[in-house]
């Protein structure tokens, strides 16, 4: 039993957090976030050159990491820097999906590693909350092509991507988990329309609509109708990464808030001397420690059976959701007015932390999942 990182991973973590602290200021981050692209191409390249993608990907995907521990190590650092570049989707999840594709498709994944391509994987739709198998986009075979109709909803980082990877139903079956396939097409494919929106936590999200979009047969990734397990694996890996990102954010918020409690004075003393705030801050500290444990647990069981993986992953995402809201809300409250202002760091971390609850399932969704797996 050993709870410390290996020295290689510790070095990677330290390198990344140092880089994010020194070179990746919140000011620059927010500037990039409010640009038309929603993030910074320069930062993307810098992150690639730091070896982040190599650490995230397994050797068979061209990296030399990819263990759950690699993923949580990198993403805790990403959270601590409030990094807004599409590392999660373009580097990690897209590569995982493309590894099931043709050589041509895998080549796109190789270009990602070099920092030269940014495909984006779009899966979720419409008003359904978080169920992975709720796919209604249709892709109908028609001679040498598929005709696609449907909408993928609130896709982060789609602006400026090179390729769109997406899921669609290719046949109706009695089992709603079957009949889903994956495709990759260039973003400029005709018939795609995009509606873009500012995102509350920075950057741009897009709705992308397919209106009788005709795509080549070789756009298919892997086997027709049988993509659900590929999708699940990518999203589960993404969920683990998001949990670690949230942890990195929580640790930063803890530091910011502790510093405020020690320096801000009211009624003549630092407000951290008030017992109520001491106990509330202690509660946050305890909950953040429990969150770290939950994520360690999820990474430990990640390569176990599918049920065990899902169970502990849901436990972690539930914990991240519940504690994330608590940390964001309590830290703002303990700051008072200062916590409400744009110019202060805290709010930006808090916004991202809350919105992580809206990706890949919120605390209620995952509590329900956990209950199913542990019944």
């Amino acid at each position, binding site marked *: 039993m050993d709870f410390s990182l290996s020295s290689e991973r510790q070095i990677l973590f330290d390198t990344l957090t140092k880089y994010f602290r020194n070179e990746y200021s919140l000011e620059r981050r927010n500037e990039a976030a409010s640009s038309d692209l929603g993030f910074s191409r320069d930062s993307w390249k810098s992150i690639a050159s730091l070896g982040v993608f190599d650490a995230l990907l397994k050797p068979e995907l061209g990296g030399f990491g990819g263990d759950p521990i690699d993923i949580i190590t990198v993403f805790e650092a990403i959270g601590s820097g409030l990094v807004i570049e599409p590392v999660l989707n373009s580097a990690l999840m897209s590569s995982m999906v493309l590894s099931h594709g043709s050589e041509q498709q895998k080549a796109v994944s190789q270009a990602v590693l070099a920092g030269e391509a940014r495909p984006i994987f779009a899966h979720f739709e419409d*008003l359904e909350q978080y169920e992975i198998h709720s796919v209604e986009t249709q892709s109908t075979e028609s001679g040498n092509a598929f005709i696609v109709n449907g909408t993928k909803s609130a896709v982060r980082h789609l602006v400026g991507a090179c390729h769109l990877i997406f899921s669609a139903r290719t046949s109706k079956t009695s089992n709603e988990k079957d009949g889903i396939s994956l495709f990759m097409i260039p973003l400029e494919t005709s018939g795609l329309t995009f509606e873009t929106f500012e*995102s509350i936590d920075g950057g741009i999200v897009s709705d992308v609509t397919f209106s009788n979009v005709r795509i080549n047969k070789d756009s298919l990734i892997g086997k027709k109708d049988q993509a659900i397990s590929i999708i699940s694996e990518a999203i589960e890996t993404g969920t683990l990464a998001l949990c670690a990102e949230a942890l990195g954010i929580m640790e930063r918020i803890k530091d910011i808030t502790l510093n405020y409690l020690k320096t801000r*004075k009211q009624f003549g003393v630092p407000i951290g001397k008030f017992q109520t705030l001491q106990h509330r801050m202690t509660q946050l500290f305890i909950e953040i420690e429990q969150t770290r444990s939950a994520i360690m647990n999820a990474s430990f069981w990640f390569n176990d059976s599918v049920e065990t993986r899902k169970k502990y992953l849901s436990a972690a995402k539930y914990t991240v959701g519940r504690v994330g*809201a608590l940390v964001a809300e309590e830290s703002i409250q303990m700051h008072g*007015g200062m916590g*409400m202002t744009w110019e202060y760091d805290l709010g930006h971390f808090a916004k991202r932390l809350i919105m992580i609850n*809206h990706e890949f399932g*919120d605390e*209620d969704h995952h509590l329900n999942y956990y209950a199913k797996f542990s019944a």
Partner: protein
Amino acid sequence: MDLSFSNEQENFRKDVRNFLRDTLKPNISSKMKLGILLSKDEIESWHNTLNEKGWLAGSWPKKYGGQGWGVIESFIFEEECSAVGAPRILPFAFNMLAPVLMAFGSDKQRGYWLPRMLNGDDWWCQGYSEPGSGSDLASLKTSASREGNHYIVNGQKTWTTLGQHANMIFCLVKTSTKGKPQEGISFLLIDMNSDGIEVRPLRTIDGEHEINEVFFTNVKVPIENLVGEENKGWTYAKYLLAHERTGIANVGLSKRRIGELKQLASETKKDGKPLIQDPIFAARVAKTEIDLANLEITNLRILSRAQAGGSPGPESSILKILGSEIGQEIDSLTRRALGRRATIHVPNILDYGYNGPNISPINAATAAGVYFNNRKTSIYGGSNEIQKNIISKAVLEL
């Protein structure tokens, strides 16, 4: 014990309802329902509409141009306004400054300022908080030193809501450093167009510009703008705090918003079924609804005690705490109900000239922003921690 409204009160409710049906513009009510900040023109226009009816300051005594409403009438009026998404009457002039002027101002001040409020001649903002003194208001540092017929004011106020529109600000300033901090504070009315005043926007975390910093550098203020006695400002401020509480439970507003939340949750889906049918989400909504139903009675109990005994007592701190917590819970459930689409942030969706895409459901455009913005409700006007201190000391005598 009888919790029903009288016939007169029910008739008044109908009058308000009819009035709102006839006068409230759909675009305004849509903005209110999405939590979008109204423009200066929109707010002033609504104030004028109310003033024509005589309802802009209904709770004022008739001699000052009000209707002499009791707390129950005010409650009914606010509830009906909230129910249909009518704008809130800005509190700074009508609920905050006016009661202080009525109680402590000179005849001349009352005669001059109160009619101007009703006419919309002045836009008042509040100058209380300072960067170094939020909850610890008595530690404020902005100074006013007497020079002939003027005070010379230096210092900084912050968290000045809608100060960017204001031409007048009422301030707590330090006129003496002797004795306890509370004893050297005065209540001053200051023209925002005076030389030496600078207003700087303070963006909130949702990106909105609602609050401001106001800087004072050797600002000359005529001594007739002192309210009451010099160094007695703390008394007036406390009086004001008690008056500010009347509508603070936000029962009507929260009722409407829970209704909208349930509607939203019947449109979004969880695993193929309407979200509102998910037992966990339904339980969250039911809990909030029950808390609110209880608060409605608690609110009326405290208000009717205030009706009987003058101004609401320290118990009214309960209303501030519960009102803000329930409102924040509704904010939270609304963004949850939107699932992945909550991330969308388009606060200008209803602006004239907006030409971006439609958003479905439209709540997604503002829900997350509103959630973050409303974290303020447990902070401003005396944070919920301060309210608990008040209850603990003044009610429980701990």
